[in-house]
């Protein structure tokens, strides 16, 4: 394992330490491993909290900032943060109008958030949850509630964060975030595994020419392993799975997010974009806004996720609002 680490057991602590040194707009809490906006809680604004395991750079801490998240609970690599951290994130984010906890559908996260919500409510803080479940291959249609949350979480934070920034109530913020995730579908393809520093070896294996179709953000197996194909065929295959699930129709507008999983060069993401864009053009679906880059990764895994969010007037307006998170800026 070749990595820039000191003690593999404290990588997350050292990362957080470096992160708050590098970025003056954020701070780390004393009470628990939580990163918050320097100016949180923002009085009179609904607080936006998320959290999850580490190793998904720039998720989750990169999305702390104006127009996005107020506080983030930081877990160990690929492990949900403890309830304790979510609880302190809620406290740090609550500006008096309650907290929207927008996170991904993983058993650990759900349990820890549930417990933290109980603790916060004992303190008189109102918390409402929205759970992202955008990963189509992780459960069949009809079982949407079982699906994992993947890169679509970013769009949920963007929408929820913008609604909060606009002065929305807790109900309004969670309604917008819920609409965002209801309108969002993702899927991933993995080409290589990643190495959790404390484990020191790849977390799964793939044959020389194999790809994992429908891979999860921690290397969870997907629908099937198959031989690697040209980029255009991979894009087509992904769209064939994602598009009908929503479904999208001629005339629809969407937000398209193509995220690398870690070590896939940006060049390859744009090669995939080229085909995805053409497929959408052919169906007369227009891309209102797009994001291409490493938005939600799995350490140094090679692979990609494609995320589509179907837009309406409200979502467009919220999507267009500025954001000033460390790793998500929009003018």
């Amino acid at each position: 394992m070749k990595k820039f680490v000191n003690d593999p057991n404290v990588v997350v602590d050292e990362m957080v330490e470096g992160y708050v040194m590098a970025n003056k707009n954020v701070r780390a809490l004393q009470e628990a491993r939580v990163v918050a906006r320097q100016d949180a809680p923002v009085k009179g604004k609904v607080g936006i909290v998320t959290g999850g395991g580490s190793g998904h750079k720039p998720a989750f801490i990169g999305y702390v900032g104006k127009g996005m998240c107020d506080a983030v609970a930081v877990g160990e690599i690929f492990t949900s943060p403890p309830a304790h951290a979510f609880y302190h994130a809620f406290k740090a984010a609550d500006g008096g109008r309650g907290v929207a906890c927008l996170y991904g559908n993983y058993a650990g996260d759900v349990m820890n958030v549930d417990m933290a919500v109980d603790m916060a409510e004992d303190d008189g803080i109102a918390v409402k949850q929205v759970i992202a479940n955008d990963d189509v291959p992780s459960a069949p249609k009809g079982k949407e509630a079982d699906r994992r949350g993947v890169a679509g979480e970013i769009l949920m934070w963007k929408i929820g964060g913008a609604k909060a920034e606009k002065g929305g109530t807790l109900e309004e913020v969670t309604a917008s975030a819920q609409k965002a995730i209801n309108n969002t579908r993702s899927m991933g393809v993995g080409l290589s595994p990643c190495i959790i520093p404390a484990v020191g070896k790849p977390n799964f294996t793939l044959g020389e020419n194999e790809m994992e179709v429908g891979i999860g953000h921690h290397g969870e197996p997907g629908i099937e392993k198959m031989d690697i194909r040209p980029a255009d065929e991979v894009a087509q295959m992904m769209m064939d799975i994602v598009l009908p699930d929503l479904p999208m129709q001629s005339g629809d507008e969407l937000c398209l997010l193509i995220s690398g999983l870690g070590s896939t060069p940006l060049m390859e993401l744009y090669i995939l974009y080229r085909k995805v864009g053409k497929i959408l053009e052919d169906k007369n679906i227009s891309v209102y806004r797009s994001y291409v880059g490493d938005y939600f990764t799995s350490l140094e895994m090679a692979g990609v996720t494609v995320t589509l969010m179907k837009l309406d007037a409200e979502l467009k307006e919220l999507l267009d609002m500025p954001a000033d998170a460390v790793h998500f800026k929009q003018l």
Partner: protein
Amino acid sequence: MTREINAKELVLGIVNVIDENKAWLSEIDGAVGDGDHGINMAKGLSMVRADLNRQPDDLGSLLSYMGMTLLTHIGGAMGPIYGTFFMKMGKAVQGKKELEIADVSNMLTGALEGVVGRGGAEVGDKTLVDTLSAAKGAFEKAAKSGKDLGESIDEMMAAAKRGMESTKDMVAKKGRSSRLGERSKGTIDAGAASCYLILTSMGESITQYL
């Protein structure tokens, strides 16, 4: 009824058995999950050990403290699940120095109800519930049939082992490995294994004070 239990020794027994088996626990977790179950548990329990001197001596408080520590520090699914497990056990024996059959029964029942309430797993889902439920059932059956505390604990430990082993051929329905479907068969569930180790260690500790 036992003599007065040295609760710190009981807790240390658990800490040690997990520490000794952490590589194995991670290895079996790695077969179908992310390979960190041993690390997670050992990390949380090492915090229990580090702070143990500053804790009160009684079993109820110590078990609750153990649960709170796991809940606060280890995150993942295990924080809430084993956190609840130990907190409920602690609650079941609050203020108790010696244990009777009813106390142990309450501990197992509390733990099981807590874990099921928290994680929603049922018997057959390939989780620690398979170990815990088998252990609880066997203990109660033995006690009901007139066996004494020691004998009932022996039955409980044997059943915990069978419960753990039963997970080998199960398809996971909860946790990470549930994503694997049929591919999750063939390995003992890591949580079921740690639960077996914990229950066995507790059982052995308690029988020492008979």
